[in-house]
């Protein structure tokens, strides 16, 4: 237990000190936090429950639009803000900006949760590929629909309120870093708490054999929906933060960005090892470092390099980094290995 405390303390210290030690990397670190949140929440469905969803991007995008809309709409007429060529310029005072952001984030987390409950009720009866394809459609549809809604800027996009002029040049970066780091800590604590209860076992039971789980008297539908709502809550929160960080929301390229974020969250979870608590965290970090590296050193070829990385992951690390480590060093994961028995098994083969 002592070591656990040490580990978490180390991470917390690293997280809190990072923006001051590496001031130039604040934006990348903020995005890393968001990526970890997305991978960790995807893992609830994809890893623990065995439901490969591409639909979590829906909650992320929804959160982004909601947060920005609330932040603007609380103080100014939203339609005039988003109208292109509107002659008026609105400026948030610092207190308006922060109040708006706070309220916006609450809405950004809560509404997607409700939406997840409703959609989940409708489609979580689907299984396997059917569920995956259906959720894929959700993100695409949301992108097209939001691109037609005038009040949130439609195809013009939505410029989120600029950060107020307080605290110097670094304030914006630090604000969004701590916001996303806070969201990461919150997500991790919540997911860890959930995983320590019977809930995780139920999700695993659904993954391993849903019919059997049902036969045992587990109301699988209920737990599937709850699981998705938990993911939606944090995805929405992450989306809200990301919207403010990027400063500009585009329906298909930033908010409902299924091609990038939607696929990345799956990749990161698989890279790190799905069905583990730490896998998505490690996966997201490794992925982000590789991605940024490729962008710097293979300009123009970054997607080719990324593609090769994905192929390598699938061939050599099908169980992800955590799965690979577990196979290699089972004793470090608290598994007792009977060496004689292991040898006997190897020889049998």
């Amino acid at each position, binding site marked *: 237990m002592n*070591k*656990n405390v*040490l*580990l978490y303390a*180390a*991470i917390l210290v*690293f997280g809190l000190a990072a923006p001051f*030690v*590496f*001031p*130039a*990397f*604040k*934006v*990348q670190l903020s*995005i890393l936090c968001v990526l970890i949140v997305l991978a960790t929440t995807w893992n609830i469905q994809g890893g623990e429950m065995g439901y490969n969803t591409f639909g979590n991007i829906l909650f992320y995008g929804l959160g982004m639009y909601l947060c920005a809309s609330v932040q603007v709409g609380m103080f100014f007429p939203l339609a005039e803000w988003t109208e*292109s*060529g*509107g*002659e*008026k*310029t609105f*400026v948030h005072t610092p207190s308006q900006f922060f109040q708006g952001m706070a309220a916006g984030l609450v809405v950004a987390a809560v509404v997607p949760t409700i939406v997840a409950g409703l959609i989940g009720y409708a489609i979580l009866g689907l299984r396997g590929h059917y569920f995956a394809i259906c959720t894929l459609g959700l993100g695409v549809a949301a992108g*097209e629909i939001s*691109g*037609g809604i005038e009040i949130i800027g*439609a*195809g*013009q*996009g939505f*410029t989120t309120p*600029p950060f107020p002029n307080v605290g110097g*040049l670094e304030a*914006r*970066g630090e604000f969004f870093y701590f916001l996303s780091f806070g969201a990461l800590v919150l997500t991790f604590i919540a997911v860890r708490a959930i995983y320590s209860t019977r809930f995780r076992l139920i999700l695993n039971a659904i993954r391993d054999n849903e019919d059997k789980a049902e036969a045992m008297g587990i109301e699988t539908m209920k737990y599937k929906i709850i699981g998705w709502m938990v993911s939606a809550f944090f995805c929405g929160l992450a989306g809200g933060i*990301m919207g403010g960080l*990027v*400063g*500009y929301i*585009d*329906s298909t*390229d*930033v908010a409902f*960005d299924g091609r*990038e974020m939607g696929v990345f969250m799956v990749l990161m979870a698989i890279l790190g090892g799905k069905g583990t608590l*730490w896998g998505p965290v*490690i996966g997201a*970090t490794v992925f982000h*470092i590789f991605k940024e590296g490729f*962008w710097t050193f293979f*300009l*123009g070829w*970054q*997607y080719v390099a990324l593609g090769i990385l994905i192929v390598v992951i699938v061939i050599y690390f099908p169980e992800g980094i955590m799965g690979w*480590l577990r196979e290699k*060093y089972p*004793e*470090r*994961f*608290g598994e007792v290995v009977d060496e004689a028995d292991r040898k006997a098994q190897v020889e049998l083969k």
Partner: protein
Amino acid sequence: MKINKLILSFISAVAILLSTSVVSFAKVVGDKIVLGAAISLTGKYSSNGVHTQNGYNMAVDRINSMGGVKVGGKTYKFEIIYYDDESNPKRAAQLAERLISQDGVEFMLGPYSSGLTKAIAPVTEKYGVPMVEANGASRSLFTKGYKYLFAVLAPANLYLDVAIRTAVELNGGKGVRIAQAFEQDAFSQDVRLGILDAAKETGSEIIIDDKLPKELNDMAATLVKVKQMKPDVLVVSGHTKGALTAIRQIAEMKVDVPMLAMTHCDAAKLSKQHGKNSQYALCASQWHKTLTYKDNFFKDGMTYAADFQKEFGYDPPYQSAESSAALLVFKDAFERANSFDQKKVRDALAATNMQTFYGNIKFAPGGQNVDKPMVLFQVMCDGAGKCENKVVAPLKWASAKLIHPIPKWSER
């Protein structure tokens, strides 16, 4: 729990990696002025991104070889750090941040497209980094009160304004019936707003108002409606892909319409790709090589076009020309500011009043160029099927007479 050790060592590895990453400070080093640019080298804007980059490079080489930039009695050369923004606004904003805070860039050139410029502008504004951009025309860029954003091009809502007014004029001053289809992106939607304004002022009626998806490769639904409702003008805007798709399908479906007005025809190399099928199409353009503007570096449009052709092997679209002009503006501003202080350079930029081969450049308080009108050209083909873009409006530069109405497909 040995696993903790693994994770701990992993974290320290990340920390070491981060701290050893080289943070280079570029800005003005030695005799170099380093400019930063995020360009779409991949993704949906990749072809226009490359036009932009070629335009920048062409001007950098030219200015450097002709003596560079003189500031404080010393001569400096331009250098550009490029990153690929993948045509994605999220990526663009992140790269702007990276160029400024990691690479230490103090002056920026714009990306390609209004959407990406919208994503970058808040970042450059925050750091007070002057940005001269050549490819973000959306009107909303200039109403946000940005102080460090300067655009050498005319705003998007003016692109096809001329076309509507010409159609009304040819109709004896009476309003016309307009059919329009626009891509769902910041630029095209702004062109649409311009048409709405023009329609209102001229008493024209919009009978079809369609939206085209971003992954644009079919607009048959709109064209079927056009066939039935027979509008006087069909307006299409959707960057390069929109122009190509429209011409392909109009020819396939033999859609007859008296006037067809579009954007991005020259970037799409329309007359080369579709030959006679693209004949009579009207195109809005920021620039055409036959315009008679002049400067000391590229001489005039025709010389620029010839030099560009020699260097890159194709006729320069206006995206390249305006990008080259952005560098001329920067050079001029540095020399007038006689300093590398960002505020002073910004003020010098705001006071710009010059002529380049691309056109006159003078910025309004919002940052848009108010001294350069749009031109309209028409694709015209000779008997042998060789097609060329000829300027037809405004009349001052017209090298050919507008052919109106477009002959029916059955008569071609």
